[in-house]
C-alpha cells in the first residue's frame, strides 16, 4: 500500500481513519459489493496467508440453512438472498467453524489443504454417512 511510503505530513490528523470514500448512506442495507470502501477499510486487505487449510463449499448438498453464515467469525461466508454462494478466501482464516456447524450429510463444507484444487476436492467428496443404529 502506498501509505507505507507516506511521510508525517501525509496523514489525517489524529490518526483518524475513514471506512468509506465519500458519503455512505444506508450501509446497513448495502451489500459489500455495492459499498465504496476506502483503502483503510480492512475489507480491502487479505488474511489468506494465515490459512494452511481451507473450507471448500459443495453446493450439491447445501440446504441454505445459514449456520455457516451466522457462526463465521470472519464474514467469509457469502450469502445473498438467503442462498449460500461460497467462501470469501480473502477474509477466511481457515478456522473450520463453518464445517463443524454444517448439518448436512455429507457436509456441504469440508476442510482441505490450502493448495488443494477445488474441483479435485469436490471429486473426492465423501458419500452420505449411514447412521448407526
Amino acid at each position: 500500500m502506498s501509505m507505507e511510503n507516506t511521510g508525517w505530513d501525509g496523514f489525517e490528523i489524529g490518526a483518524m481513519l475513514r471506512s468509506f470514500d465519500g458519503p455512505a448512506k444506508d450501509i446497513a442495507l448495502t451489500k459489500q459489493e455495492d459499498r465504496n470502501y476506502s483503502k483503510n477499510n480492512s475489507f480491502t486487505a487479505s488474511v489468506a496467508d494465515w490459512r494452511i487449510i481451507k473450507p471448500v463449499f459443495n453446493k450439491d448438498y447445501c440446504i441454505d440453512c445459514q449456520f455457516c453464515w451466522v457462526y463465521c467469525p470472519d464474514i467469509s461466508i457469502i450469502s445473498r438472498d438467503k442462498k449460500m454462494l461460497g467462501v470469501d478466501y480473502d477474509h477466511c482464516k481457515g478456522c473450520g467453524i463453518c464445517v463443524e456447524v454444517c448439518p448436512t450429510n455429507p457436509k456441504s463444507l469440508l476442510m482441505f489443504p490450502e493448495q488443494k484444487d477445488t474441483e479435485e476436492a469436490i471429486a473426492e467428496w465423501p458419500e452420505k454417512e449411514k447412521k448407526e443404529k
Partner: protein
Amino acid sequence: MGEIKKIKNLKEFSTSADRFEGANLLCPGCAHSIIVREVLNATNDDLVLSASTGCLEVCTAVYPYTSWDASWIHIGFENGSTAVAGAEAMYKALKRKGRLKQPDREPKFVSFAGDGASYDIGFQWISGCMERGHNIMHVVLDNEVYANTGGQRSSSTPIGGSTTTSPAGRVSYGEKQNKKDMVAIMAAHGIPYSAQVAPNKWKDMVKKIQYGLEVEGPVFINAMSPCTTEWKFDPKDTMMISDLATDSLVFPLYEIIDGHKLNITYRPKTVIPVEEYLAAQGRFKHLFKDEYKHLIKEWQERVDKQWEMLQRREEAGV
C-alpha cells in the same frame, strides 16, 4: 430506521449486510467477532460504537486499517463505556440545538469491552454510566481472562482456571476465586435491562439486543466468548464449546428487566454434566488429576445451586 429489524429465522438474518469487516486480526475461531456480528446485525439503525483496549480493539483498528463500518472510538482500557456515553451526550445536545447533520436519524450507542475492561479496570466507569442513565448499551465480550496480553486472570476467571497469573502448578489448582456476578451487579443499578447471552444461541442474542436497543436507558449485556487461545481448544470447536457452556448451565441465559424481574431465556432439553464442559478445555485439564477431582464435583454443585437460584428468582417474579 426506527423500526425493529424483522429477523424471523436464520435465512432472514442472513440477508443482513455486515458492518464489521474481515481481515481483522482476531485469532481464527475467535468468538468475539461472532458476537459482534450478531449484535450489529440485529439492527439496521445507525450506530456509534466504542471499544475498550483489548483483543477486539487491538485487532480491528490497527493502522492503517479499520474493520468498522460505523463510527467507532477507542480511548483506553477502562473508559470505552464513558467514551460512548460522551458521544451520546453530544447527540442529545446537538439534537436539542438543532445541529445534527442527519436530524431525522437516531443512532444507537454501543460499547464493547472485554471482561478485564469491564469486571476489573473499567468497573467504575461502567457503573457510572449505568447509574447516570445514558442511553447506551455495554456489551462485555466475556472470555474470562486478559486474553489480549497473554492470558492473565481477571475477576471473571472461574475457580480452577489455569491462567498465566493463576497457573496450575505443583501445589495449585489455578484460580482460587469464583467468577464475579457482573449481571447481578449491573442489575442492582436498577437499569432497564441486563442479560447474559452466548454466540451459539443467536436468536436469543438477537432478541435481547433488539430489546436492549429499543429500551430507553442503559443496558448491560454479558456475552460468553469462548477463547480458543486461552481456554485452549481447537479453533474449529468454538461453537461446540459454546453449546457445552450453555447446555451445562455454566453460562445460563437469562435477562433481568428493570433491575429485578428475572426471566430464564434458554432451558436445555438435556442438561450436560459440567465435567464435559471442563474436559473440553485445556485450561481445566489439571482438574482431572486425582487430587483435584473434588473440585469438579464442587463445580457441578455450584452450577446446580446457581440454576436453582435463577429459577426461584424467576418464579418469584419480583
